[in-house]
Each structure stands twice: as structure tokens, then as C-alpha cells.
């Protein structure tokens, strides 16, 4: 009996230690970003960083560190990605979970999950040599290396994540719900859309958030197809530069201890805040959801 208690304590300790460890690592990274990022402001002002519309640290003349074009580039490409991926992803998940059965379902799900592990550099190459000329031809624009191209590819990238997680969420809706709906004379589609989908709302929201995270943090694809001009995006066909690709492009050449070097950590911190904000919003939505829809 005593031995059992000791073992129980030990296991609890191990889990506790793991949880604490991941929290410490996360806080450590955050502190590191903050500590380095803050030093940017010995070379430029906070106001100029937050409201500047020109990002040109490696300038011929005066360097400028304006966050806005990069932030807007990130937000715009992610927004396009989600506009494409949410309806497509949720619809696919409903179809896979509610309509497919047996080995067909397993095969489709496996294929979707396989696509989630697709190397982004290959997708970027596809965007460069196939999608870019296609966009240029269809819309009669000089070059297809632009916001639209990046958004479409990011949408494709977040699609498998959204489908897979949303499908899992739909699957755990109790079968009794569906049976009750059928008993009332609902068709399978009505059941799927009016009963099962609302019941899985919080899980689907989580799927969308994961998809958002995938799109916002992706580097290679946008680096290859977005055109990387740090312009304030005005149209779908303008080249854009995202926060992630800026860090990837410039970290290697910025001299250690330079304002430029520190500003890249400040960018990383902004990215972190972006992810944190969306997570908090999602969390509160899910919580509200749980209150209004009790099982």
C-alpha cells in the first residue's frame, strides 16, 4: 500500500517537473527576446518602430526600422490564407467525419495528414515556377510573386492542420446526438451541419487557431513567393515582406550588437505577442462557448 503511494507521488513529481520545465523554457525564450529586443530602442525610438512605414536597416544612407509594412504583410497574407483555408478545411472535415466510412475514410485522413508534413520549400518552389506565372497570366499583372501567391500557398499549408484537428473534434461529438436528430427526421446533412458542427464548435475554433499559427509562423514559402519588397501592401498583387522572412533574411548578416541585430529580436517579440493575442482570444471564445453549450 505504501509502495503504491510512493510510486503515485513519484509519477506526479515527474509530470510536475515536465510541466515546470516547459514553462521555464518558454519564459526563458520570452525573457531572451524581450532583453535583446528592448536594446533596439537605443538606436531608434519606440514610436518610430511602431509607426514607421519604411523598413530599411541596411540602408545606403540613414537606416530606418519601421514595423508597419512587415506587420501588415504578415497579417494580410495570413488573412488571405484563412479566407481560403477555413471554409475549405471545415467543409472537408465535415465530409470526412460525417460521410466517409471504413477504409476510404482512413485513406483520405492519412493523405491529408501526409500533406501536413509536406516540406514547405517544395511548396515554395511550386509557387515560384507554377503558381506565379499562372497568377501573372490570369490577372494580367507583371509578376505573380506577390501577396496573393503567398496567401494561397499559406492557405494550402494550413489546410491539412485545420482538416485534421476539425475532423477529430467532429468525431468526438457523441453518437447519441446524431441518433436523436435522425429520430426527429433530420437528413444526414442537416444533422451534420445543424447538430454536429455546432456541438464541435470549440474544437473547430482550436483547429482554426492552429491553422492561423501555421500560416503566421511559416517562413520558407513566403520567403520564396511573396516578392519580399517591404512595401505597405495596397493590393493583392503587390509584393509583401513578412516578419518571419525578414528575420530569416537579415539575421545572418546583421552584426552582433548592432541596432539592426536587436531589432530582429524585437520583431520576434512582436510575432510572439501576435500568437499570444490570438491564443487568448481563442481561449476566451472557447470558454464562452462551453458555458452556452453544456453537454
Amino acid at each position, binding site marked *: 500500500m505504501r509502495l503504491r503511494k510512493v510510486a503515485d507521488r513519484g509519477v506526479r513529481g515527474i509530470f510536475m517537473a515536465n510541466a515546470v520545465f516547459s514553462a521555464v523554457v518558454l519564459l526563458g525564450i520570452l525573457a531572451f527576446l524581450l532583453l535583446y529586443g528592448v536594446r533596439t530602442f537605443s538606436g531608434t525610438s519606440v514610436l518610430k518602430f511602431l509607426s514607421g512605414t519604411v523598413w530599411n536597416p541596411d540602408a545606403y544612407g540613414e537606416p530606418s526600422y519601421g514595423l508597419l509594412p512587415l506587420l501588415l504583410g504578415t497579417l494580410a497574407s495570413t488573412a488571405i490564407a484563412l479566407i481560403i483555408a477555413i471554409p475549405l478545411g471545415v467543409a472537408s472535415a465535415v465530409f470526412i467525419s460525417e460521410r466517409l466510412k471504413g477504409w476510404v475514410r482512413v485513406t483520405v485522413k492519412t493523405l491529408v495528414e501526409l500533406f501536413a508534413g509536406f516540406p514547405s520549400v517544395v511548396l515554395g518552389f511550386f509557387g*515560384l515556377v507554377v503558381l506565379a506565372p499562372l497568377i501573372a497570366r490570369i490577372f494580367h499583372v*507583371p509578376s505573380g*510573386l506577390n501577396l496573393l501567391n503567398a496567401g494561397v500557398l499559406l492557405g494550402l499549408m494550413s489546410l491539412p492542420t485545420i482538416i485534421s484537428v476539425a475532423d477529430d473534434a467532429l468525431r468526438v461529438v457523441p453518437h447519441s446526438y446524431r441518433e436523436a436528430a435522425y429520430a426527429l427526421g433530420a437528413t444526414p446533412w442537416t444533422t451534420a451541419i445543424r447538430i454536429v458542427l455546432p456541438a464541435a464548435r470549440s474544437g473547430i475554433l482550436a483547429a482554426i487557431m492552429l491553422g492561423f499559427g501555421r500560416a503566421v509562423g511559416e517562413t520558407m514559402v513566403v520567403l520564396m513567393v511573396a516578392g*519580399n519588397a*517591404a512595401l505597405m501592401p495596397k493590393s493583392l498583387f503587390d509584393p509583401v515582406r513578412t516578419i518571419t522572412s525578414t528575420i530569416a533574411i537579415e539575421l545572418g548578416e546583421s*552584426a*552582433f550588437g548592432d541596432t539592426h541585430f536587436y531589432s530582429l529580436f524585437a520583431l520576434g517579440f512582436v510575432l510572439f505577442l501576435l500568437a499570444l493575442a490570438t491564443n487568448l482570444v481563442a481561449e476566451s471564445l472557447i470558454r464562452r462557448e462551453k458555458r452556452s453549450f453544456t453537454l
Partner: protein
Amino acid sequence: MKKLLSIATLTAMVTTLVAGEVMVKGSDTMLNITQRLAEAFSATRPDITVSVAGGGSGVGINAVVNNEVQIGNASRAIKSKEISSARANGVNPVEYAIAVDGLCVITNEKNPVKKLTITQLGDIYRGKVKNWSEVGGPNKPVSLYGRQPNSGTFVFFREMAVKSEYAQSMRQMNGNSQIVEGVKADLGGIGYVGVGYVKDGGISVIELSSDGTNYSSPLDKSAVDAGTYPLARPLFQYTNGKVKGDAKAFIEFEMSPAGQKIVEEEGFFPLNKSLVEKNQGNL
């Protein structure tokens, strides 16, 4: 079987420990040519492995400054800021030229503009000239393709042709081949790439002039040699202090007639007399 395997791994480990390894990193423009040189060098000296990585000239110089590699490739000269941070790190960068590049300005093959002055070129990249009709071409908007700031070509072209900030609308591409791909697909496109990257069809190489009367092409060896082509530049390798050991053997091979022949095969130009003399002073 297991024993055999472990002996094999052990031998492999020992050989890697014993054999010399030279690490080279930097300029993407110099990536292909350095890789070919490394392969040819390994054929003559199987005891030395040379590994070559890209990343851009800034990355290469930084790697030497931080003592991460023996040789840093750069398609531009080291900046004074980089020299001072190297000194602060106890590193003394020494420069060797291994080849000469005629930086090529390329446009879409269908664009009738085949000649530009350096001033026109600068105006185009400064964003002052926005339409090809302003430089004698068709009524078509110019779209600019260039490299990213970690590229030595980005810096060199800005120093030599733009002499100011690049237009913000310039697409910043991830390497020479991507610029070629972009310009090939874009009727109003203009880009700049190393001479080793223009063998493909679909693009034309612009003849440049600094005075407006004598135009020359970077594909013309005599123009690059004589320095009449305005965008000719040496390609450098940097080391910490005068190069020694295995790295020295590699650099000497690059400068040898066999090495310079590979340089020419890759589309670049061999070292001229003054560069050879400068190299000898540093060896």
C-alpha cells in the same frame, strides 16, 4: 555483423578526425563555382574535404569574423564596420581574389531595350524611371528584381549603379536563379545576376556604358579584363590571418591554372595581373 559495422563506423570516425576539413561559407553567387573548385581539388587531394555552403556574402564574412569557418566567400569587399568587429573578436581578415565576375543586368528576351547607361540603370533602380518608354522601350511598367540585403551582389550593385536607396518596390529574391526565373516570366522585368547564371534562354544580357558612347557586354572577356565593363568585380575569399594549412592548399589550387580553368568553365573570368599580384602579397 554487428562487430563489422562498429569497426566500419570507428574507421569512418577516425578518418574524419585525421583527414583535414576546410569549411567555406558565404556568397550565393560564388556557391556553384566554389563547389566545382572543391570537387576538383578533392580529386587531387583526397585527404582534404572541402565543404561549401551559401547564405550570402554578409553571412560568409560574419562566419569568418566569428571564427566559424576557415574561408568566407564574398562577392564584395569587406566593410570597415566588419573589419572593426573582426578586430574586436581577435580576428584579422585577409583577402584573396579567386575570380572576376561581370555582374549582368538582365531583362526579358522580348524587351527591345538592349543597351543602358549606368545613369539610366541607376534611375531605374532608384525608382525614378517607372516605365520602359522612358529609356526607349515599349510602354510597359518596369518591375524591379534584386537580391536581399545579406547578398554581396545587393551591396555591390547599390554602390556601383544605384548610389542611393533601392526603390522600395524592388522584389528581393532569394538567390541568382530566382531572379532569372522572375525576369524570364515578366515582360517588364529587370534584374542583376552573376555572369555564371545567364546561360539560360528567355533573358537578354544588357550592354552597359558609363559614358553613353561605348557600350560593352559582361560576356565580352576583353571588356571585363580591360575594366571597360562598368560592373566587373573581383570575387573574394576571406580568412583569419594569412591562410595556412589545408585551407592554403585549397586557395592555392583555386589560383592555379587548373583552378582558373574551372573559373572560366563556370562562366566567370580568370584573375588579371593586378589581382594576382595582390594575392601573392597575402599568401
